[in-house]
Every structure is written in structure tokens, then in C-alpha cells.
């Protein structure tokens, strides 16, 4: 790819300045520093034009010789899926391209300065607790529009575009005000997890109605096992996810849509209050106050030791606990039981969403290559490789059909198939992080100190109204 004249020297000047500052040779160029560190990068040219020849095997017009830089977040999913599956797949098609791979546990710390300096990697896995604010990236024009990627043909599913091969809602999940800028790759299903061997040994079955649920919790309690718990110290969002799942099942998915759109009185809806009421009672009657002070790893370990029977989580749980799971423990998952007999959605309905963001830097050196890399992630082989390495499903439809990988994965796959089209999600937690924080605190209060549903709704409504009135926060709708 030809360097656009001017950008090269511009970068060099900055690099030199940065190094000089590092060496402490620069005295106090405070304003200069601010310009270089904080607000630089906006004049960096967008190099996005197809520079290779477009063909059936190269629909995005990637320059076959251009190097590609990929950065993967090293967390619960590891990085093997990239180094062992996706990079070889890319190199098979473009053997002359040198793919540079690196990994980090802190994406923002490592990548954000590079984005601002106008030198971002081409494809970034924006994930983990230190992920970069995707809305802010889009606002600053740093993320590549992925429309062309989704319209391109699939690598190995003949006759389909990339979009056709994905589960419905995937493209929308990465849209910011109408245009796709992020690929949410991992498909996570949420439910109540339990040890199927413990259940089988006691003749317990997964409850469908609330009466069955509480009856089961009573039986478990009788056995001296803590029936239900979650980690209050750092994972209360697992619990508010379950509360809102119940709310959506009682009142339909629009309940969540209204919450996302900051509609007036969305948190005061009868369905939300009913769900909070039901779960608050579970917390008061079957929970353990001490778990407010525990972290997710501690509660999950207690479940592995059969001290906790039922635990709310997403489908990464099995992989996360792999090394602590004893032989007598097999993960299984059930949908949240129906709260009323007249719920708007069936008992099989679940919370499921595409997550784990991958995006292409718009101002990188090889944005076409970055998009092409995503196309390889979305191939059938790429998706299978990912699921085998991580035990997490991808957004590629039916990529792992017929494969048996692990009991937990089979169980979540069964639950997803049973749900059919009845799955839903919300996005307020990533759009408005402040609301997420308030929901965590309010949930802990609801579940651990007496279960006052009205107070929960009032608190959340107040916080949502405050976010709505705050002009400094960018608003999104869906």
C-alpha cells in the first residue's frame, strides 16, 4: 500500500517528540504535549481505499502484500483461537502478508495512546474490564464502517453473504445510530447454572414455574446447601440480568427496549416491579447475606464444591471454571422460570446476546486487511475453531452443529434451540455505564437487605432520568 505523502513525516515528528519527552529532555512544552497526547490523531488520513484487486476470493480488495496487525484481549477466552485458527486462515489466502499478533490484558492502556497518536493496530479485540469506550471511538471517527464486510460473500459457506450466515440481531448489536462499527462475535446465552449430577443424584429437575422453583429451593435448603447465590462484591450484574430477564418474560421484550431508550417510567413498569418483587423474596428467603462481600470466583468455586446449588451466569462460566471443576460436576443451564402463569413470553425464552467486540481501526495502515480478518473469523471453520478453543458459541449460525464439545456447551445450545426466536437483550449497561453502576448497587440492596421492589424501581428510575437529563452523555436508541 502506498504511503500517502505527508502522513509519514507527521508520524515521525510525533514519534520523535514522544521519545524526547520520555527521555526527559523536554522541559515544559505543556501545550505541545497535550496536543500530541490528548487531542492528536484527528488529522490522520483515512487510508481506506481498496488497494488490491477485487476478486471472488478477495471481495474486499485487500492488498495481498500489506502487513496486518492484530491485537487480542487475553482474558477468559485466551488467545489461542486467534493464533491457531484465524491468523493461519488469513495467511492461507494471503501468504505474502505478514501478520503481527500481540495480546494484552489492558486494551485501553496499550491501544488508546496508539489510536490518539494516529498509529492504531488494524484489528482490535476491544474487551475486558479496561476496554475502550466504543461510543467515543465511533464519535471520533476511529472505527471502520463494516457495512461492506457484512455484504461480502462468506469465506466457506457457499452462496451466502457474511450477513446471511449470522444469527439475527448480530449486525444490529454493533450498530451506532444506524451503521455497523463493531462485530460482536461471541454468542453468549444466560440462564441459571447448576450441577446436573447433583440434581440427578437428588432427583431434582429444572423448574419451569415459580412455584416449582421455590419448592425446589426449599428442598435444596433442606439438604443444607445454599439454594441460590451470586457474588455481590463484583458480579451483581449477573443478578440484575436475571431480574430484567424475568421482567421481559412477564411484560415482553419491549420492557427492555423502553429501558434502553430511557423512556419515561421504563423502570416503573409493572413487569419490572413484579420481577424485582419475586427476586427480592428469593434473596431474602434463600440467599446468604455474607455473599454480598464475595467475588464471583469465590461463589463459583463454592458452586463447584456443591455448597451453592444455583448460580446465574453467562455461557463463559464452564470455560472460566474449567480448572476448578471436579470430576463429579457437570455444568447445565436452565432458563429463568416463569414468574406468573400469564407471562407475555414462554418459559423457554432467554437472554442471549452477541458480545466480545472486535473492530477495525479506520485510521490504521490496513483497514481493508482488518475487515478481511473479521471475514475469516466469521467463516464456518473460523467459528468452529473458536468454539472448540473457548467452549463459547459464536454468532455464526449452526457452525458447531453435530459437534459434541462439553456438557455445558451442549446444555446452553439446547436451551438456545428451545428458545427459538424468543431471545432478547438490553444494551443500557454498555451505553450508559453509570446506569449499570446504579443497577449493581440497587440489585445488591434488593437482594441482600430485605427486597423492597418499589425502592428498586424508584432508585433506577431516578438514575435513568438523571442520565437522560445529562447533556454530556451521548444518547443511543434502538
Amino acid at each position, binding site marked *: 500500500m502506498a504511503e500517502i505523502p505527508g502522513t509519514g513525516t507527521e508520524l515521525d515528528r510525533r514519534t520523535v517528540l514522544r521519545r524526547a*519527552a520520555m527521555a*526527559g*529532555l*523536554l*522541559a*515544559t*512544552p*505543556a*501545550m505541545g*504535549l*497535550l496536543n500530541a*497526547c*490528548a*487531542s492528536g*490523531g*484527528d488529522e490522520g488520513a483515512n487510508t481506506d481505499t481498496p488497494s488490491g484487486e477485487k476478486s471472488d476470493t478477495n471481495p474486499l480488495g485487500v492488498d495481498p502484500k500489506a502487513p496486518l496487525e492484530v491485537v487480542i484481549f487475553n482474558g477468559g477466552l485466551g488467545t489461542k483461537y486467534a493464533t491457531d485458527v484465524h491468523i493461519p486462515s488469513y495467511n492461507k489466502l494471503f501468504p505474502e502478508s505478514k501478520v503481527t499478533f500481540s495480546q494484552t490484558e489492558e486494551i*485501553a492502556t496499550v491501544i*488508546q495512546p496508539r*489510536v*490518539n497518536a494516529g498509529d492504531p493496530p488494524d484489528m482490535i479485540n476491544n474487551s475486558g474490564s*479496561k476496554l*475502550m*469506550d466504543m*461510543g*467515543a*471511538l465511533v*464519535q*471520533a*471517527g*476511529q472505527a471502520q464502517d463494516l457495512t461492506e464486510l457484512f455484504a461480502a460473500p462468506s469465506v466457506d459457506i457457499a452462496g451466502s453473504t457474511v450477513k446471511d450466515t449470522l444469527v439475527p440481531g448480530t449486525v444490529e448489536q454493533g450498530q451506532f445510530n444506524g451503521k455497523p462499527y463493531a462485530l460482536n462475535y461471541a454468542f453468549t446465552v444466560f440462564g441459571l447454572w447448576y450441577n446436573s449430577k447433583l440434581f440427578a443424584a437428588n432427583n431434582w429437575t429444572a423448574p419451569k414455574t415459580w412455584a416449582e422453583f421455590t419448592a425446589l429451593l426449599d428442598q435444596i435448603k433442606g439438604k443444607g446447601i445454599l439454594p441460590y447465590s451470586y457474588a*455481590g*462484591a*463484583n458480579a*451483581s450484574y449477573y443478578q440484575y440480568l436475571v431480574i430484567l430477564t424475568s421482567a421481559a418474560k412477564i411484560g415482553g421484550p419491549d420492557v427492555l427496549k423502553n429501558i434502553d431508550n430511557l423512556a419515561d417510567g421504563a423502570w416503573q413498569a409493572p413487569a419490572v416491579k413484579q420481577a424485582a418483587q419475586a427476586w427480592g423474596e428469593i434473596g431474602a428467603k434463600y440467599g446468604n*447475606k*455474607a*455473599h*454480598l*462481600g*464475595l467475588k464471583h470466583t469465590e461463589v463459583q468455586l463454592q458452586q463447584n464444591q456443591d455448597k451453592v446449588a444455583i448460580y446465574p451466569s453467562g455461557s463463559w462460566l464452564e470455560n472460566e471454571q474449567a480448572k476448578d471443576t471436579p470430576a463429579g460436576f457437570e455444568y447445565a443451564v436452565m432458563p429463568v422460570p416463569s414468574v406468573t402463569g400469564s407471562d407475555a413470553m414462554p418459559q423457554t425464552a432467554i437472554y442471549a446476546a452477541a458480545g466480545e467486540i472486535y473492530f477495525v481501526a479506520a485510521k490504521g495502515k490496513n483497514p481493508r486487511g482488518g475487515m478481511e480478518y473479521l471475514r475469516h473469523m466469521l467463516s464456518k471453520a473460523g467459528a468452529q475453531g473458536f468454539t472448540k478453543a473457548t467452549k463459547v458459541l459464536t454468532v455464526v449460525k449452526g457452525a458447531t452443529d453435530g459437534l459434541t464439545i462439553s456438557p455445558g456447551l451442549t446444555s446452553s445450545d439446547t436451551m438456545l434451540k428451545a428458545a427459538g426466536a424468543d431471545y432478547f437483550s438490553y444494551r443500557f449497561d454498555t451505553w450508559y*455505564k*453509570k446506569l449499570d*453502576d446504579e443497577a*449493581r*448497587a440497587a440489585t*445488591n*440492596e434488593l437482594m*441482600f437487605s430485605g427486597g423492597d421492589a418499589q425502592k428498586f424501581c424508584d432508585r433506577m428510575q431516578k438514575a435513568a432520568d438523571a442520565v437522560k437529563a*445529562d447533556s*454530556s452523555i451521548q444518547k443511543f436508541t434502538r
Partner: protein
Amino acid sequence: MRHGKYPFIIGFLAVPVALYGTFVVAAYVQTFQLSFTSFRGFGAATYVGLDNFVRLWDDSQFWQALRNHAVLLIFLPLITIAIALVFAFLLNVGGGAKGGMQRGVWGSKFYRVVFFFPQLLALALVAVIFGRVYSPDGSGLINGLLNGGDDPILFLADQRWALWSILAVLIWQAVGFYVVLFSAGMGSVPQEIYEAAALDGATRVTLFFRVTIPLLWNTVQVAWVYLGIAAFDAFALVNIMTVDRGGPDGATMVLGMLIYRNIFDYSQYGYASAIGVVLFFLTLTFAALTLRVTRRDTVEM
């Protein structure tokens, strides 16, 4: 030598001044500048005047953090200095006079090491250790000792106790340093004064209040300022130990945590800088006030 003087001085100062200018002054200036913008981490910063400070005024979390700092500001210096003074006194003077020399209690050399030990541990380690000590189930050190974890005390999970639990760790960690500081101060008190006081029949308690403290006043004053500044921090412990980082429900929220969350969770760099500016002035005001209020005539020795 004369005409070589300035190049020598400049050559000597250039590097430290440049380092200080780059990493301290420039960073401060940049924070002040950012506090007037709505910068979100990417792209250009837009100036919004005093908007961030107006929002801060209405931010209930900010006020809660200030209240928490007020509690720390009162009790951290008070308790730490009190404990450190007593320990230092016992280590240096508490053993009574022997052969004309004031001595510490038996084994004072050993205790000196023990007291200083927490100071050697990184704060993050201290936080993790006390996370286990306070753990709300049977695996917690304290709750495990008390009735094996049944009906546990929720140190960090109970709004009433969370801040005090953090305060206790801060004190535990700080005491050792101030014992050493006060010991050094007591070492410089001339023996004759103690001797004269002892001849006049002063008890240990009288020695402590009438001799040691007045002569140590300068050191105590410095300790007070240091501890006050530490009370404006507490970020590491709150970040690692507390429920929901600053919870439950804001009970342990501190300004450092608020800045961190605004930058890394909400991408509100401008707003976070505004909190930083407020913190800067609070610390400065506190230090100036303390030095002013506690000013006394130094006792000539």
C-alpha cells in the same frame, strides 16, 4: 572558578528540572486544561467552560466521597498519631532510666521491626491480605475465629462498617512508619531533660505529656500533614477491597475512585480532571490550614 559557576549549576539542575517539568508540572497543567473540556479520550477536546464544576456541585457521589474523606481526615491522623506516639514512647523511654540512660521496654528492638513491617508491604498486598482477613464467610480470618463463620460480621459488605474497616487497614499500615519517625524525634531529645524530670519525681505519664509531646511537636505536625494527605487518597484499598469498588452503595467512595471510574468506566476525561483539580485544591488547603492552625513556638533545646 567564578565564570564556571553558572554552567555548573545549570548542568546540575537541568535534568531534575526537566523531569519534574515534564512529569509533574506538565501533567498538572494538562489536568487543569482538560477540566474545562468535555474530552472523552479520543479526538479533539471541546472547551465547555465551568460546566464540569457545575455538574460536580450536583453530583451526590462527589459529596458522599467528601463526607468519607472527612471521616478519614479526622480519624486517620488522630488514631495513627496516638498509637504511634504511645509505641514510640514505650520503645524509647517507657522502660525507665538505667545507668543514666532512658530505655525502651524489654524487647523494644524486636518490636521496632515488627511495627515497621507493614510499611514494607506493597499497599496492594495489604489490601489483598485484609480482603481475606475481613472475608464474610468461614474462610475469613476474623469470622473464622468467631463461631466458625456462622452469623458473620460483614466488615466490607455492611454500609455501617465498610469505611471503618478500610480506616483500620490504613492505620495498621501507617503506624509503623510514624513509630520510626517519632522514635527519631525522641532520640534527639537531650537525656538531661528526662533526667531532670525524673529527679523531680515525674511519672512515665507525666514524662509523656509534659516532656515528650511538647518537644516532638514539630514532628507531630509533619505527621499530621502527611496523614491528612493520605486520607485524601485511600484509592488502592478501596479499589481492591470494597464491594462494587466504593460500595456498598457508595459507603467507601473516595475521590480517587471517582476519578478512576470517570476516566476508565465512563470515558469522561474532562469531568474526571475537574474532580482532580478539586482534589488538588482540597489537599493544598488542608496542608496550609494544618500548618497554620498547629503553629506553636518551637521549644528551644
